[in-house]
């Protein structure tokens, strides 16, 4: 009897679910009764950011009854595979939120619309050329960069104040040598360290920061082919980290395999004076720091090229298959009006790319380090190699293990160079035949 009842329940559940089962909308985001429906897949994930996006979509829909935008929440996890499948199946969202370093394959694959003729002059001129370079592949522009974040030093303000070291500013930052000397001074060699480097993903962190010393690593020759060279300018940042960990003992070796969030408990617990992190980590710090914990944002050290560093901004693109590219571009223009860009930036704790939005007083307050970050915006450039074909394989198979071994002290600088350049160029050559 009990079994019969169980079977009946299962059948009932399946039957009642049928209305939920067959739900293919089938319209592909196209026109319905003369109205256009656009699907906007957003990767916003923090509540303030999701709220800002949803509010903006509602405002658009209220003002544009003939062009409705549907908000679809995606996720950063597996977004590349999910988009690739959607593109292949002709079911991609009309408006796509992603990061510039994920766009190259899609752009070269013909999945994204070239936006050059679609965007208004206002938006084009509001975003600096150095930001447009992050979304330019070949001759086309395949996304609008709108949010970006520099790497900064989050510091224990009390510790720094009591130590008496010079506090850096964007106008007078530390040099890399000075940074090393100061972390050596701050650490006590007995479980307290001047800095904790979270280098679970060592390649982008190293390459982005190496722009400050003039390091480029990837060089495009007159034949159009990209080759890797590891010169003196490329050595400065990795050597500093290596020496802090292995020579001075001023950086904790245990955090080298950690992500940024993993280092925060030690930072709050007074083990580390500073942690290099992305600018948006401030939100976690505000949420999780113990009562009375005094922290501040410092610029990353500067080199021969000043405070320059690489970034991969968040982007908005339009699917090539979208039948309503102009409407999609108009929505992007609305979303990235200066006042709206500010709302998105505040929601994500990041910096807008737009020059007018960057001037907004809300992003210039001292509280939570906003002012320091806003000052750094003009030094942000396209992350090295994000448009180089073969870079993902070089990063995963060659550079990541090589940097991890170098930072842990398992190999020396010569071996690091040999692997990055020798093995690396073999990988790139396969993509450039």
């Amino acid at each position, binding site marked *: 009897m009990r079994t019969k009842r169980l079977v009946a329940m*299962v059948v009932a*559940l*399946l039957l009642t*679910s*049928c209305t*939920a*089962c*067959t*739900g*293919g*909308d*089938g319209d592909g985001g196209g026109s319905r009764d003369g109205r256009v429906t656009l*699907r906007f897949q957003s*990767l916003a*994930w*923090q*509540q303030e950011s*999701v709220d800002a996006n949803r509010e903006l979509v509602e405002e658009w829909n209220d003002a544009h009854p003939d062009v409705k935008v*549907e908000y*679809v*929440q995606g*996720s*950063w*996890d*597996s977004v590349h*595979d*999910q988009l690739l*499948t*959607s593109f*292949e*199946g*002709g*079911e991609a*969202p009309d408006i796509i939120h992603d*990061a510039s370093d994920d766009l190259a394959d899609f752009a070269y694959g013909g999945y994204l619309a070239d936006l050059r003729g679609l965007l208004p002059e206002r938006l084009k001129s509001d975003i600096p050329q150095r930001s447009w370079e992050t979304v330019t592949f070949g001759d086309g522009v395949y996304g609008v960069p709108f949010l970006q974040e520099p790497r900064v030093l989050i510091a224990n303000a009390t510790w720094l104040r009591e130590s008496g070291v010079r506090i850096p500013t964007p106008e007078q930052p530390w040099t890399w040598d000075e940074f090393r000397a100061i972390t050596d001074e701050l650490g006590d060699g007995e479980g307290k360290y001047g800095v904790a480097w979270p280098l*679970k*993903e060592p390649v982008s962190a190293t390459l982005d920061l190496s722009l400050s010393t003039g390091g480029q690593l990837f060089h495009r020759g007159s034949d159009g082919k990209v080759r890797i060279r590891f010169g003196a300018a490329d050595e400065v940042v990795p050597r500093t980290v290596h020496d802090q960990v292995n020579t001075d003992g001023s950086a904790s070796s245990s955090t080298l395999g950690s*992500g*940024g*969030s993993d280092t*925060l*408990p*030690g930072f*709050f*617990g*007074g*083990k580390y004076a500073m942690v290099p992190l*992305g600018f*948006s*980590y401030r939100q*976690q710090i505000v*949420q*999780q*720091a*113990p*009562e009375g914990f005094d922290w501040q944002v410092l610029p990353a050290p500067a080199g021969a090229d000043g405070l320059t560093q690489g970034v991969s901004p968040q982007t908005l693109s339009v699917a090539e298959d979208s039948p309503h590219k102009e409407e999609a571009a108009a929505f992007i223009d609305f979303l990235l009006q200066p006042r709206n860009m500010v709302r998105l930036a505040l929601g994500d704790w990041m910096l807008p790319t737009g020059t007018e939005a960057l001037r907004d007083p809300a992003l210039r307050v001292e509280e939570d380090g906003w002012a320091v970050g806003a000052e750094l915006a003009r030094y942000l450039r396209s992350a090295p190699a994000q448009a180089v074909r073969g870079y993902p394989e070089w990063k995963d198979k060659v550079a990541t293990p090589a940097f991890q071994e170098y930072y842990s002290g398992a190999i020396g600088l010569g071996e690091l160079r040999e692997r990055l350049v020798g093995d690396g160029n073999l990988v790139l050559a396969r993509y450039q035949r």
Partner: protein
Amino acid sequence: MRTRKSARASQYLALLGYLVFLAFPFLWLISTAFKPPRELGSLHPTWIPKDPTLANFRQAFDEQPLLDAALNSLIAAVGAAVIAVLIATPMAYVMARHRTRLAKAATGWVVVSQAFPFALVIIPLFLVLKNLRLINSVAGLIMVYVVWALPFALWMLVGYVRAVPTELEEAAAVDGAGKVRTLVSITAPLLAPGIVATALFAFISAWNEFFFALVLLKTPEKQTLPVVLTHFLGAEGVADLGPLAAAAFLATLPSLVVFAVIQKRITGGMLAGAVKS
């Protein structure tokens, strides 16, 4: 005698260690779900939250449609389990009882098919489902889960069928029962633990599946729990840890409940005494 006792003690100790190993992530998940943000950032984390809060649960429900997602997951998982078992049981019977070359080849194919990576099949599958207008549909997802679960379900059930003594079926035939009567009245009840175990496998694998659901379901109201859970994750692995733990804890409960309810069926020893010796 002493050696046997010490061996038994070692076995229990190993079992205890294994249980602790298995339970650790789940207990830590529960602990995290009830911690306020400041305790999550503590250098010296505690098992019992000092200042327990339900705020993470409230935030998780406020931010994401967890109940809708749970219902979608339940429909997909129950549907996949029921259909997979209905298809796999007769197939398994044939493969177990009639050991032909075709049955052997089918068994080999079943094993090989388990090695296919998701990425290999997802695009053709997407196109097929699109032509059937089953993209963004839980029914389409159930079809995928059934196909995905079938090989392993079949492999499991073949073993269970082989464990049912053929003498029982022969005895039923001698007593005048037809083939269908024998299958329904004699074999099927004896297979019950195997069928339940197979259904459980199909249910749990569908309940936890992420990639197909991510790719095939487009709109938020159709998404399943594993997909919705990723909405608490940011770029480069940053996570909204408290609400994520709260939602993940809730997501594990149905699996545990289903397992608790039907585990007796699996361990019931229903074959005991079936054949007179």
